């Protein structure tokens, strides 16, 4: 098949091509307003003032898929709670990597959608992305999940929140310790950063508080979302005799499903995965973002000042335990509820001496303790006694 064009057609075509290119390029003007008409979904113009009749727009940015049964889904549940508030409209975007893409997404939400509050939910968004965009857009509030805000160093329109989810892992550890038959627990972890190590340690301390012979075998997969490695790790742990699994990865789905398939128990993380493991799911350590998000949005919409650094645990309702599964015995429930009550009351301190790490070194001598807000816990770089494994260096 050959296509041949006579001269007049060639000339016309080339003229049309040049003209189209010229027209297309001339559409980009330097103003930030659009020339294209707004679409039916009602994207707002670039106004930042909230007129009384216009809905208050809140933006949410996720680093992974919203339906991942894990980290991002927990944030999406918070977003849904905000969307249910009257007069609020939300805009969500998922799968935004921690690169310049998230800066552009934030700016786009503000300029093209008119967002006045933005929740970029991944830990890695903070530095430098949120900081750069917050300086450019001082009238918009940026609320980051991670607790990195430093007064005086970071811009005033940035806030930071986090939850002491290791309290919930402690209680989950109690349930795990009383449910295990072999005494071997397993933990599939992503990276050996302080937040993850804290979860491993709290889980183990909880389990050993009711079952002193319990051990936790930990496997580090190396990154936040590696489904194949997570499945491998779960399987190899079960092969070694582990009968209760837990995890700290972005999407616990793989580990939970593997546990159910292998017939072992599992406690969840981030959100509730009980629907994925109807028989084996015991409980889980979950975030309660709806509470924090609705609080923030209410404060900002009413123009009240909001705390720049917001942290809390079970007591403040920032974290919660997922409902108990069918396999949890009455004794386990009672002990777990008692521990939860003590944590809320403040009479139970997880990291209290005498405390040794798994090489025998003494971390906390008898009589000393580190409360949840202790900054030393933020730099954790050890695995407590009872954890089988090493921190990869």
């Amino acid at each position, binding site marked *: *098949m*050959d*296509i*041949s*064009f*006579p*001269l007049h057609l*060639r000339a016309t*075509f*080339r003229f049309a*091509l040049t003209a189209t290119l010229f027209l*297309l390029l001339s*559409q*980009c*003007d*330097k*103003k*930030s*307003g*659009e*020339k*294209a008409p707004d*679409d*039916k*979904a009602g*994207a707002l113009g670039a106004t930042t003032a909230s007129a009384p009749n216009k809905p208050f727009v809140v933006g949410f940015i996720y680093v992974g*898929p919203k339906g991942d049964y894990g980290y991002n889904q927990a944030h999406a549940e918070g977003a849904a709670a905000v969307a249910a508030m009257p007069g609020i409209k939300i805009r*969500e*975007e*998922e*799968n*935004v*990597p*921690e*690169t*310049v*893409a998230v800066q*552009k*997404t934030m*700016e*786009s*939400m503000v*300029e*093209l959608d008119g967002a006045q509050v933005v929740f970029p939910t991944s*830990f*890695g968004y903070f*530095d*430098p992305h949120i900081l750069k965009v917050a300086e450019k857009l001082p009238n918009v509030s940026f609320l980051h999940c*991670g607790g990195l805000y430093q007064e005086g160093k970071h811009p005033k329109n940035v806030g930071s929140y986090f939850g002491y989810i290791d309290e919930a892992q402690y209680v989950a550890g109690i349930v795990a310790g009383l449910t295990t038959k072999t005494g071997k627990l397993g933990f599939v972890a992503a*990276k*050996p*950063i*302080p*937040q993850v190590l804290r979860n491993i340690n709290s889980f183990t301390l909880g389990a050993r508080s009711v079952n002193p012979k319990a051990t936790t075998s930990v496997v580090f997969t*190396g*990154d936040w979302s590696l489904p194949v490695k997570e499945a491998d790790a779960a399987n190899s742990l079960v092969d070694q005799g582990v009968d209760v699994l837990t995890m700290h990865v972005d999407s616990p789905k793989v580990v939970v499903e593997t546990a159910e398939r292998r017939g072992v128990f599992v406690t969840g993380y981030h959100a509730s995965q009980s629907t994925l493991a109807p028989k084996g799911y015991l409980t889980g350590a979950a975030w309660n973002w709806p509470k924090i998000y609705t609080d923030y949005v209410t404060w900002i919409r009413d123009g009240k000042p909001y705390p720049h650094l917001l942290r809390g645990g079970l007591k403040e309702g920032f974290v919660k335990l997922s409902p108990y599964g069918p396999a949890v015995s009455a004794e386990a429930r009672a002990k777990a509820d008692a521990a939860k009550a003590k944590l809320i009351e403040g009479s139970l301190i997880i990291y209290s001496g005498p405390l040794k790490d798994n090489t025998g070194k003494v971390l906390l001598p008898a009589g000393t303790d580190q409360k949840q807000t202790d900054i030393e816990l*933020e*730099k954790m770089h050890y695995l407590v006694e009872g954890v089988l494994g090493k921190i*990869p*260096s």
Partner: protein
Amino acid sequence: MTTSGGETTSVGERLRGLRSSFEELVLVPAGAVAVSLAIFGAFVTLAGANPIDVYREMYRGAFGTWFSFQNALTRAAPLMLTALCTALPAHLGLVIIGGEGALVLGALAAVVAAQAFAFLPGWLGLASMAVAAAASGGLWIALAGALRTFRGVNETISSLLLNYIAIGVFKHLVEGPMRDPASLNKPSTRPIGDAFTLGSIPGMDVHWGLVYGLVACVGVYVLMRRTVFGFSARIVGGNLRAALLSGLPLHKLVVAACFLAGAAAGVAGMAEVAAIHGTANASLIVGYGYAGILVAFLARQHPLAIIPVSLLLGGIGASSGLLQRTAHLPDAAVNVLQGILFVVILASETLRGRVRSRAPRALALVADSPAASAETTEAA
């Protein structure tokens, strides 16, 4: 190339007929993009959105406003350099897909240089970072090239596997020996400092990495089309036996071309570190290298064509956010479009050499005369 009517064409005509015509260079890719968009429109309708709305949102998010256009440019910047990592060796007939590994090692070398040469003034420090990045990325891909030319190891597989090795080494170093103690929950190297930050092009919100990409693409074009090295390289790619019989230094050409390819991807890593992150951490491993492969193939390995194709893919990426938020399509919809684009453009390769203007321009008058108006003159 004689016609059925017995007319002979001159040597000049024959040679001109072998080169791609303007129509083919523009019409075929443009047609492929149009067909891809049409297929994407059908997909989008099945997904429950209005295709016209989707097209409008894509345009608005990619090129419709000055903000969107800059967004597209910022995303296109690393793609130009990583695409060269695939396009340059392709002139020699090699299929290298190691851009990701070279980028990552280039970023690592850049932060090492930034710390080693911290005493240098800003621009000199940046130059040292770029040189270090280019050298490390270049050596990495040159390794793949050397394995191919000296030992016959398939360069596609070796460069792909070298990606994983490079990423493994990167993660090990960044989370271990090179880790900044202050970066607790997001392991990163020590910050390179404000003096070594790559700023924005004046008047725009896009960093200078874009200019690096443009200069590199033009440079590779000049190298391949106007220098002896490029000519030799293209002979190797066109007809290996002829190259060997002509006595061309095959090993040197292959290794040098792979070194330059890796250098380009390494500089992409350095630009990301200096302009965006200010440090090296796992946020650099987002697939720019793999997207560069796509860009190179879409541009049919032509260095100048990489520039508009990067812009196109940058625009598609830039519009994905708006598609999610207003058309409520899942993020994967943009991947679908990229995949369709890839397949359609590769399929449009079959039209290569078949779309031609009627006659060379110098003989336009002759072409319109009845004697030369026979369609069979244009037999391939």
